[in-house]
């Protein structure tokens, strides 16, 4: 994926020079390893700062919400699906954006790598599917496929679903992946086991809302957790409040979440918050035959009504 960068820079420079867009949203190297940050290039010089490697896991669609100008944006498979969702939800117009599709082979999970070493990681580089990690007394090379973000290992939409330019040839999609193995395991639990599982899952949450802030779906002007009149959910560290926050946030993403993994990636405590949104993703797929962000032609299940909508839970 490192070889994409020349093409990315070339396309971005051209778009800016021809005034097709006012800025191009991409990534630049972060101040710490494995944390590339969003970069908003408005000139040919800015474009030179662009990077592309396996640390570009942030969902750039997050920066499109309610923008008025013409924008070029790099989009992995998941980003492109969120862009589709954004267009459907009138958060951006299709003719306002030039999508530079970036076929993706998966992003690495910094939590996994950090957990492997006791010492601070100072540099991470990659080549030919191998990741090299350097730190105080550490110099180790590992396979990239062993440290992929979990959502990337089960991803079936690596190629952008919507694009105007392509930064590289399309990659082969993964087939034959079991997306919902972990969800089924929880579904099979008894109610007390489920209660215990979620208690344990969310026990380290510090309510920093990084998951919400990283999520392109969470664009409400006032989030329900910030509202104080009425106050929908307590602001304390009480497990009940924490649980309410996470479950409600997940429900707000039902039929919209593309499992891009931005929430989990952003979590400073390494909480596997995706398990909640994945359950809803699975339900939408099984009950409504819906995968979010694949087409501009169909309305999502939560804003359409069909007489044959499944309603077995209502007596």
């Amino acid at each position, binding site marked *: 994926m490192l070889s994409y960068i020349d093409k990315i820079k070339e396309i971005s420079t051209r778009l800016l020079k021809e005034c097709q867009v006012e800025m191009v949203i991409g990534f630049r190297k972060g101040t710490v390893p494995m944390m590339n940050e969003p970069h908003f290039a408005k000139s040919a010089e800015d474009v030179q700062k662009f990077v592309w490697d396996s640390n570009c896991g942030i969902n750039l669609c997050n920066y499109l919400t309610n923008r008025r100008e013409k924008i070029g944006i790099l989009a992995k498979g998941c980003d492109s699906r969120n862009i589709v969702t954004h267009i459907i939800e009138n958060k951006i117009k299709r003719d306002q954006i030039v999508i530079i599709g970036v076929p993706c082979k998966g992003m690495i999970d910094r939590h996994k790598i950090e957990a492997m070493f006791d010492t601070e990681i100072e540099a991470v580089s990659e080549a030919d599917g191998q990741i090299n990690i350097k730190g105080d007394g550490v110099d180790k090379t590992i396979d990239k496929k062993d440290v992929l973000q979990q959502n990337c290992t089960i991803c079936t939409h690596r190629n952008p679903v919507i694009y105007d330019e392509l930064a590289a040839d399309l990659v082969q999609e993964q087939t034959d992946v079991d997306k919902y193995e972990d969800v089924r395991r929880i579904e099979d639990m008894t*109610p007390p*086991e*489920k*209660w215990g599982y*979620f208690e344990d899952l969310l026990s380290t949450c510090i309510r920093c809302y990084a998951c919400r802030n990283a999520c392109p779906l969470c664009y409400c002007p006032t989030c329900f957790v910030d509202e104080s009149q009425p106050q929908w959910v307590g602001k304390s560290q009480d497990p*009940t409040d924490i*649980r*309410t926050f996470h479950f409600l946030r997940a429900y707000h993403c039902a039929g919209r979440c593309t499992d891009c993994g931005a929430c989990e990636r952003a979590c400073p405590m390494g909480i596997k918050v995706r398990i909640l949104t994945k359950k809803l993703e699975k339900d939408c797929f099984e009950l409504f035959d819906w995968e979010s962000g694949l087409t501009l032609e169909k309305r999502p299940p939560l804003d359409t009504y069909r007489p044959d909508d499944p309603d077995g839970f*209502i*007596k």
Partner: protein
Amino acid sequence: MGTEPGRLQFFWVSSAESTKFVKVVTEVTHAIKALGPNKTLVKTMPKVAEDVELH
């Protein structure tokens, strides 16, 4: 999320179905009473006064 089965129930009741509404409310009330007090998703308020030693 791990609440007991039956603690949460959904019904269709039209505004014209007053007798069904009464029936549903009675049924659910009986069913929930049989389950006993809710143990999950209960927020316990911090005990303030008891923990503070007055000097």
